[in-house]
């Protein structure tokens, strides 16, 4: 199902949660709404679900107005952040709920309900937990129950609010791949809300980066990572080195010294130079315009990072640079930095 969000605005008292947001989600896509807390991503998801109503704007499912329909009538599968499993029902009854509350012609006979629930439990690989209660399940198992329950009503749209937020890192990774796999098996359009960029980049067909109630960029995981449209996206996705520079007469300056870098069409005035740590090489201080003193070197797993203090236009700036394996770097040494890839944005 295609979902069109057109010019949606939502305010909570004086706080603008969504500011004139427009977005099209295509049939069968898995789209991630990615942003920091307060960026409006959950509000957008809840508006698509019908749990929240916009102050203005439109939401259309396959071209038809969805706002005139309540959440009951939209037939969307919603997976809540903390699962919201019915605590007094066992796993089987949780999954069966959406089928049991049907009235009239849609009501299924008991045998059909049982068959459907068992099929779903099998699909999410928790058949053996059918008699358990939510309190007796691990986080990952609860997540699967929540998914099976949402899928029971055969939704064309699956909405997931921070589906892996409450899980530990290992289970999270496992479930992530499994969810991707599940999405491909089912005829469903999925929208996922997350603040975890790694999750969004790994899972989604397209990533919608949100900040301050606006959409900053929509693109494939590769696009938003390699070609961030704004400084916000660059900052939020992936690790970022930021240098406060200045554009003067079509050239970039840092603390008054020319850098010899391309200003990428940014007009004269203060600018920010952004780069990924792994796109910045360490170099001889004399061979580059950017140089500074190493404050400390940290090693975590396969990565090593050096904190380098540079002289900026207004006081010292500390940036993180990648240190290749096998290179020793003592605190206090002067090093030069040479960005291979970088982005310049007007500040």
């Amino acid at each position: 199902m295609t979902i069109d969000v057109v010019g949606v605005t939502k305010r909570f008292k004086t706080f603008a949660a969504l500011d004139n947001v427009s977005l099209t989600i295509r049939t069968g896509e898995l789209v991630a709404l990615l942003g920091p807390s307060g960026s409006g991503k959950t509000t957008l998801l809840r508006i698509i679900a019908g749990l929240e109503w916009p102050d203005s704007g439109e939401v259309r499912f396959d071209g038809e107005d969805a706002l005139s329909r309540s959440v009951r009538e939209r037939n969307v599968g919603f997976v809540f952040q903390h699962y919201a499993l019915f605590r007094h029902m066992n796993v089987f009854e949780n999954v069966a709920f959406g089928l049991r509350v049907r009235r009239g012609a849609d009501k299924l006979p008991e045998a059909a309900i049982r068959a459907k629930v068992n099929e779903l439990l099998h699909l999410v690989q928790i058949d053996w937990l059918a008699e358990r209660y939510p309190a007796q399940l691990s986080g990952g198992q609860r997540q699967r129950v929540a998914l099976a329950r949402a899928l029971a009503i055969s939704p064309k749209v699956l909405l997931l609010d921070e589906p892996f937020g409450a899980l530990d890192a290992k289970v999270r990774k496992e479930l992530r791949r499994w969810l991707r796999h599940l999405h491909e098996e089912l005829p469903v359009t999925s929208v996922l809300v997350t603040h975890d960029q790694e999750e969004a980049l790994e899972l989604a067909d397209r990533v919608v980066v949100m900040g301050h109630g606006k959409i900053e960029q929509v693109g494939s995981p590769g696009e938003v990572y390699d070609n961030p449209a704004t400084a916000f996206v660059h900052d939020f996705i992936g690790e970022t080195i930021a240098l406060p520079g200045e554009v003067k007469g079509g050239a970039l300056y840092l603390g008054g010294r020319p850098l010899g870098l391309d200003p990428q069409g940014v007009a004269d005035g203060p600018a920010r130079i952004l780069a990924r740590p792994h796109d910045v090489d360490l170099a001889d201080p004399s061979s580059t315009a950017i140089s500074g003193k190493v404050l400390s070197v940290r090693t975590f797993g396969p990565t090593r990072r050096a904190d380098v203090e540079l002289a900026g236009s207004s006081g010292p700036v500390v940036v993180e640079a990648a240190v290749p394996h096998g290179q020793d770097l003592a605190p206090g040494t002067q090093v030069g930095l040479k960005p291979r890839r970088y982005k310049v944005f007007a500040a």
Partner: protein
Amino acid sequence: MNALDQTPGHPVAHGASEGLPSALEQSHTHAAHRGRPVRTEPRGVRIILTVIALAFVGLFIGLPLVTVFYEAFKRGWQAYVAALVSPDALAAIQLTLIVAVISVVANLLFGLVAAWSIAKFEFPGKSLLITLIDLPFSVSPVVAGLIYVLLFGSQGLFAAYLQAWDIKIIFALPGIVLATIFVTFPFVARELIPLMQEQGTAEEEAAISLGASGLSTFFRVTLPNVKWALLYGVLLCNARAMGEFGAVSVVSGHVRGLTNTMPLHIEILYNEYQFVASFAVASLLALLALVTLIAKTILEHRLAEEDR
């Protein structure tokens, strides 16, 4: 969680990999709950404190309770039964039961509605409502009774209206019920509000998103989630409704066989030096207290279990 799980490339089925650690986790938390208490006081101090506490409870609660039953059976069980089956005593028991049933049902409905609206919705005047619900806890029951006398009594605010329609509230069943409802007002609501607030609205939202109607959501999700707390509130409400003296005393008029509840009947018998009869009826109330206590303990256990 353990070294085995960390092994890179260790192939495990999705379900199985989570089942085992979860079981481990649970037994772990249980052990933590039952962990040894930290005891820093020397043995002597502990014994002295325990003895003081036990002596206090025995003297002020245990002894009076035993006395009630001792006095009630002083002249043998025939006298005891005779006191209970006297027409006045039966009338008092009947009235007490009627009043308790009406006030419990009224406060059950009110408590559910109030707790539901307070916990699940935002509306102006919410904090005022929460404060007002607590009012009966802080007001003397006698004052509560007087309020109704001032409102509905023969000199009261609505006196002319009530006389015109020949409605009797004070010195009659309606007055006793009103006073009892006032006094027992907070029990159910107070029990439900924190629980419902803690549970939030996510489960209701989930139910509605799965196609349930508002009513169906209430009966299938909201109500079952609070059933033990609701029962607990009803229990306390009932115990108080049956035992209430002050407020009822003001509005009842003490008409024997008509407007005397059990506590009032006990007082009258006692004032007339009919000690055996008085303590016999009192023993019924004491028995009610004991049953309430046992049921309360069981319910608390259920509640704690649900809280896990």
